[in-house]
């Protein structure tokens, strides 16, 4: 019994990390119908950026967020303005294959700069501490913090979209990128801003990933798949659905790991396929397209 409870709890906490991975992907699709195949590689890039900063000037990984987040946001803005905007249109092939090319380039670029060794962002006691809940049940402090960060991020984005001027511009552009031009909104710039926000969340996800587990340059694709599965399980375009999707994925993986360490990821993928089979719209489909 205690084992079952423990597994589910680990899974739910893992869901926080996956929701963090998925937020940027979900945002870019929600606003621009843009799917970034290099999403996972940008997460890993965030982790390596943090690592490079620490190597240059030893500091706590969380402090590197002050530089990594703005840096990735600026990069995302210009990637959107200079590259991704050129690919948007009726044909889905250019955005997919351009970002696929970027994904391979990023992986090999990181390999060239940092070698294939596994790295970790050392955060001292923070990542090893746990809270004893009694009865042999304990939860890690850092996974809990991750979940809280994910919830705070989603709440913050919810606020941004519903209450602020930039949020209105983002929603309006998502509804009709041509009509908003009549209201003096430049949809190309709005797309840039949307990608900047999405990329900042990617940076956050990267630093948290680096503190949670070991990473290497080729770890991007699995993170893309986890993010993608969380988005689809939760239901396209639903921010809170993404959190639920991440948790379903996390629990499925935790259950798999409990049976056999080699089955964790596999169980996650199979759960995704099963949900696709019985509920193709995801758990919390958004009725408005």
């Amino acid at each position, binding site marked *: 019994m205690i084992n079952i409870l423990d597994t589910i709890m680990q899974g739910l906490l893992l869901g926080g990390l996956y929701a963090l991975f998925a937020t940027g992907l979900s945002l870019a699709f929600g606003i621009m119908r843009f799917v970034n195949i290099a999403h996972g590689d940008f997460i890993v890039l965030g982790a390596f950026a943090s690592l490079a900063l620490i190597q240059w000037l030893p500091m706590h990984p969380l402090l590197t967020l002050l530089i990594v987040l703005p840096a990735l946001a600026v990069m995302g803005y210009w990637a959107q303005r200079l590259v991704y905007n050129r690919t948007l249109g009726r044909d889905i092939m*250019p955005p997919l294959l*351009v970002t696929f*090319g*970027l994904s391979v380039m990023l992986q*090999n670029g990181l390999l060239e700069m940092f070698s294939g060794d596994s790295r970790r962002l050392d955060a001292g006691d923070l990542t090893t501490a746990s809270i004893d809940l009694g009865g042999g049940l304990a939860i890690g402090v850092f996974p809990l913090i991750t979940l809280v960060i994910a919830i705070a991020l989603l709440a913050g984005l919810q606020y941004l979209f519903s209450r602020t001027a930039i949020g209105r511009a983002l929603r309006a552009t998502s509804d009709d990128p041509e009509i908003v031009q009549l209201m003096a909104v430049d949809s190309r710039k709005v797309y840039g801003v949307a990608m900047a926000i999405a990329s900042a969340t990617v940076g956050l996800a990267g630093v948290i990933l680096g503190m949670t587990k070991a990473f290497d340059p080729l770890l991007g694709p699995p993170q893309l798949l986890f993010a993608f599965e969380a988005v689809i399980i939760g239901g396209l375009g639903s921010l809170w659905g993404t959190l639920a999707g991440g948790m379903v994925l996390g629990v499925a993986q935790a259950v798999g790991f409990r049976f056999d360490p080699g089955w964790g990821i*596999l169980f996650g*993928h199979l759960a995704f396929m099963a949900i696709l089979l019985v509920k193709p719209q995801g758990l919390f489909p958004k009725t408005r397209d």
Partner: protein
Amino acid sequence: MTTAAFVVERSTPAARAGLNTGLALIIAGASLPLWAGNDTMITLVEFFYFLALAQMWNLLAGYGGLISIGQQAFVGLGAYSLVVMAVFGGVNPFIAVPLAGIVAGVVAWPSARILFRLQGPYFAIGSWVLAEILRLVFSNYSALGGGSGISITESVSAIDEWWRDALSYWLALAVGAGSMTAVYLLLRSKQGLALTAVRDSETASESIGVSVGRIKLQVYLASAIGTGIIGALIFLTKLRVSPEAAFSMEWSALIIFIVIIGGVGTIEGPLVGTILYFVLRNFLADYGSWYMILLGAIAVIAMLFMRKGIWGWFAQRFDVQLFPLQRRLTIADDKAPSGQPSDTQKHD
């Protein structure tokens, strides 16, 4: 003024020349094991399987509009079908290769039922999930070697070495030339017309009675079967199958780069792309990661600025087609200045 008679023509001089050259090359190519060295044969085997893989992906993505980044699923399935049939079932490996296509098709069918629920870009990532599932299943299946893989050497060791190399080569030649012929014949058939119609507009083709769902399923299955056969052939020449190598992402990366650079949605494109890939690899293979970065960069630039790739640009600039798929309307009246491009109208 005389009334000009219109003739619908399909074949062009370039196409006839291309067909003759192609046939001559295949015949010359078939005799290669008799006189060429081992290195040449190994390189050509690789050339043929990359050509065939590219042709299969092009059929799926360029014509079927199903952009998959998980075709390594079927490369790996083909490889493991070969292992099961040849190592455990005692089937002659050269017979197991075509049979591997059936296994790939059998797995592809139910997979399609699930993956087709994902739209456009999400289908792409979904296809990748399928490949990962298969990789993880075989990594965990210790009877087939688990994560460290399994050797198929014992199943081919009974065959004389010269015959083994020659048979592998002929099989590769057949797969390479066969994939081009199969795609060409498919596109000229009724299904091919429906397929190009679906590529151009799903709504319009649905309205004239094309079953879009069915045609996409057929293309997906055809591509999976072809890729499975190629996968078995690849690992027949590599002699060792491991989940990491068989279900490697690099298969998809290379195939996609080849097709994008050569020209997506044309039969000639994969051929041009494969040739270019081998030339580049020859010069740059020593540079490791930089070589993949360069290949990726060329593909990104092609997708941004030359969407139809090298062959697409070339065909448009010089109005050449080696594999005639278009019907051209020409004025046949000998008084009319025939043969000028202005009299010719192209229809895909």
